[in-house]
């Protein structure tokens, strides 16, 4: 019965989170699902969208929904690594002696909003690498672990390129998902306007704490995956590598410059398990893999000039890869 409760709690928690988020965010169902999946999985999310689509609002709302320490870092070109991670300062102790003390930076939270992350210099961006992957920060030889759950939610504007520094592939790979905020429909736009007429603050309240998130993560890890689905997911990742001799994907050979890292496979399976549970299923299906292939692969593969020349977006290339992979079932 206790176990049944765990499953029920998972569903309830997801429903609560989504309910709270919908207080501040209109539409964007897939985006919300992806963000929730990433939160449960403990993965980082890169939110990309044109200005005003609610990227920051979504993350701020999420921060309020989860009863977790939240911090926001506004990335600018003059932002230094120490501004993110923290620094050692010299101060007098109680006895009047000068001592060195580590002053924690804004990264020391459990939900970190890295707003407009591509505006910081690569040096500062690099300061995020360790914490995003290993959930710890090393400053002056001292390593400081982050409290769990921890995840970074970053935003970036795909249109504005002046004064920005594209994220290096190594850092991009550390984002579990790259979620694209789509422009709202007319009705959604109206709802957004109405919602923000009274006040701009987020309305979400904390409904899930960190412990619950960790329980949900643990539960999701037990979702069974049959070998065929696992192979399907791995084959999809493999197909993005046109350079592999045993890769017969015509799409990859034609449109992909370089493919996804093994982290993509991990993200696919981990995310697919949570997605299955969110959707009320208790096993991972091919559809779960396909659905998550977009946010997982979107920032991990690079399309070549042929694709650009033919007007193919990265999502269309991923769609072709999925279609090709489906034939192998």
């Amino acid at each position, binding site marked *: 019965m206790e176990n049944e409760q765990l*499953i029920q709690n998972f569903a309830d928690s997801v429903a609560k989170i989504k309910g709270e988020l919908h207080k501040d965010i209109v539409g964007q169902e897939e985006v919300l699902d992806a963000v929730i999946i990433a939160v449960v999985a403990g993965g980082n999310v890169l939110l990309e969208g044109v200005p005003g689509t609610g990227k920051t609002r979504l993350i701020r709302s999420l921060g309020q929904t989860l009863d977790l320490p939240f911090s926001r870092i506004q990335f600018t070109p003059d932002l230094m690594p120490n501004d993110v991670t923290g620094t050692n300062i010299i101060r007098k102790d109680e006895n009047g002696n000068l001592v060195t003390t580590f002053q924690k930076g804004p990264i020391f939270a459990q939900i970190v909003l890295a707003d407009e992350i591509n505006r910081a210099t690569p040096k500062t961006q690099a300061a995020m690498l360790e914490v995003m992957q290993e959930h710890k920060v090393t400053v002056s030889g001292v390593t400081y672990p982050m409290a769990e759950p921890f995840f970074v939610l970053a935003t970036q504007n795909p249109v504005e390129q002046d004064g920005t520094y594209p994220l290096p592939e190594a850092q991009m790979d550390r984002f579990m998902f790259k979620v694209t905020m789509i422009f709202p429909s007319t009705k959604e736009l109206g709802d957004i306007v109405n919602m923000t007429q009274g006040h701009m603050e987020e309305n979400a309240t904390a409904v899930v704490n960190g412990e619950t998130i960790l329980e949900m993560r643990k539960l999701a890890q*037990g979702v*069974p995956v049959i*070998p065929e689905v696992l192979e399907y997911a791995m084959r999809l990742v493999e197909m993005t590598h046109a350079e592999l001799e045993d890769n017969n994907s015509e799409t990859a050979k034609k449109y992909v410059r370089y493919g996804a890292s093994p982290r993509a496979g991990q993200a696919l399976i981990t995310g697919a398990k949570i997605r299955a549970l969110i959707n009320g299923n208790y*096993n*991972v299906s091919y559809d779960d893999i396909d659905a998550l292939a977009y946010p997982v692969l979107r920032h991990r593969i690079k399309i070549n000039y042929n694709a650009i020349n033919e007007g193919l977006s990265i999502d269309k290339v991923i769609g072709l890869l999925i279609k090709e992979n489906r034939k192998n079932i």
Partner: protein
Amino acid sequence: MNNDFNKFKKKLMVEHLVKSILFGVAAGLAGAGLSLVVFGLTGTDFIAWVHILIGVVLAAATFGLLYIYKRPDDKKIAARLDKDMHLQEKLSTMVQFQNQESLLINKQRDDANEKLAFKNPKQVPFKLAVLNIPILAVAGALFAGSFFSPAVAKALGIVDDPTKTDLDGTDLNERTEEIAKDAKDALEESQADEDLKEEMNDIMDELVEDLEDDNDIDSRTEKIEDAKSAVDEALDRANSKEEIGESLSGNATNEALKDLGEAIQNGDTEAVSEALKALEEQLAAAEGQEKVDLMNQIADEIEKALAESGISEDDPLYQALKDLANDMRENAAALQEQLNSDEQKALEEAAEQAQQAAEDAQAAAEAAQQAAEEAQQNAEANPSDAAAQQAAQDAQAAAEAAQQAAQDAQQAAQQAQQAASESSDNAQKQAKEDLEEADKMINEELDQQNANEEEAEQFKQAMDEMVDPEEEEDEFDAEKDEKEKEDEKQEEQDQEQTDDKQEQTDDKQEQSDDKQEQSDDQQSGQQQGQQQQPGQQQGSQSGQGQGGTGAGAGSGQFTYGSNDGVYTEDGGQNLTDNNNIEDGQAGALTDASESGDESGDISDYFDNLYNP
């Protein structure tokens, strides 16, 4: 697995069974079809059950292998159900983790079973393999198509021999009876043996009856072949020449008798006569006892050959040869008796004595002649001696008398000898008569048997026409049409030739008038005719010859050799170019090379021109 899953599983197993059966049937059809084609193409005798067995074995083997080795397991069935019923891998996961226990696995299993409980097996479509239908279609087409290959179709009897046509029953009967009637009429008028005629007519009647309303080519052919065999048997019974001839040529030691045997076997009447003539010569060369022995030998060998031939004594050829043998034996016996008689012995003794007396008389005559010569010499030596003269005359007279006596004795001896050999001559004469009689009888019988053979062959040809009388009739009509066309063409050609000759005759008449007028130019024309072009020997020779002829005939015509042909000059007035037609002022010209079919007419024209 719960009952719901088994329910679906059962349905998919039935589907698998059907697929396996279809593949098995396809393999069987393909195998049987290929077998039919291969057997048909290689001309191997068709045995229907072999192909059926091949098809059945292949079908059973394919079905068995597919059903056992391609039998879907639970995982495949679950995957199929997931796909067809959009169950998002619930059943596959359930099957995969059916032996594991955990919170989510148990929950997943319950969820899968719950979802499956709401599904109906009808939601799973009955799917055949992608290749099921195409393979079955190809195999079926191959199998069906094999029946249309000529060899197989013929072997199976599906279609008739394509070289033959279907027959129409009604016309067929009429035409068959016509052929039979014609054949019987021809047989009646022939010189064939009467018994054979009767027997062959019976065979034909029976065949016509059998062929009535039978329009199957193979069946007709079979019946006709049987009838032809019956004709052959009848002919064998009627004709004995082959058996007797073979036996005689094989058993005889006498070369003439061997030749006689071969001649009889071949039905060669001239050779028979030659062989009997040779026997006569052998007998003529023999005398007395030798002749007796030879005649007995001939009789013995003939009788032996007849005995071993196995031919009935009623056979006419047998009888003819038997008669010859009997005659020979009788003749030999008669001669032997004469040779053994006292009178004959006395005659022979008298002949010997007369011969002896003749020889003695001849010796005396020679002695008297010698004495006369001596007396003559003496008288010549003493011409004055009258006595010597008288003695010489007497001696001469005596010598003449002795000579006369010797001649008389010789004549008497010859008469005695003739009297003694009279019996042998009589025997030879008798043998000659016997052989001539045998020659006549044997050749008559051979003629008869040859006629039998010929009629039997014609009878069999008529029977062959009955296989497909319409076709034969068509061929006959076609030949007839072709012959009529040839006759018409020939008539047209004859008419054209007649017209050409008439025209040529007119031309000749005109040319004769011209020749008469130009007789004064003969000399100059002859000189021109003798002129030769270098390297044109034939034309030049022709020119000389024709020129000479022309001059002799007073026509003044000459022929010149040229590279392109032969030019003839008619007294310097008419020119004929074999390559070009030129209507000269002085006369008409004819082109042989361009006139084509008229080349023969041109030749006739020249023949008539130069040899009027």
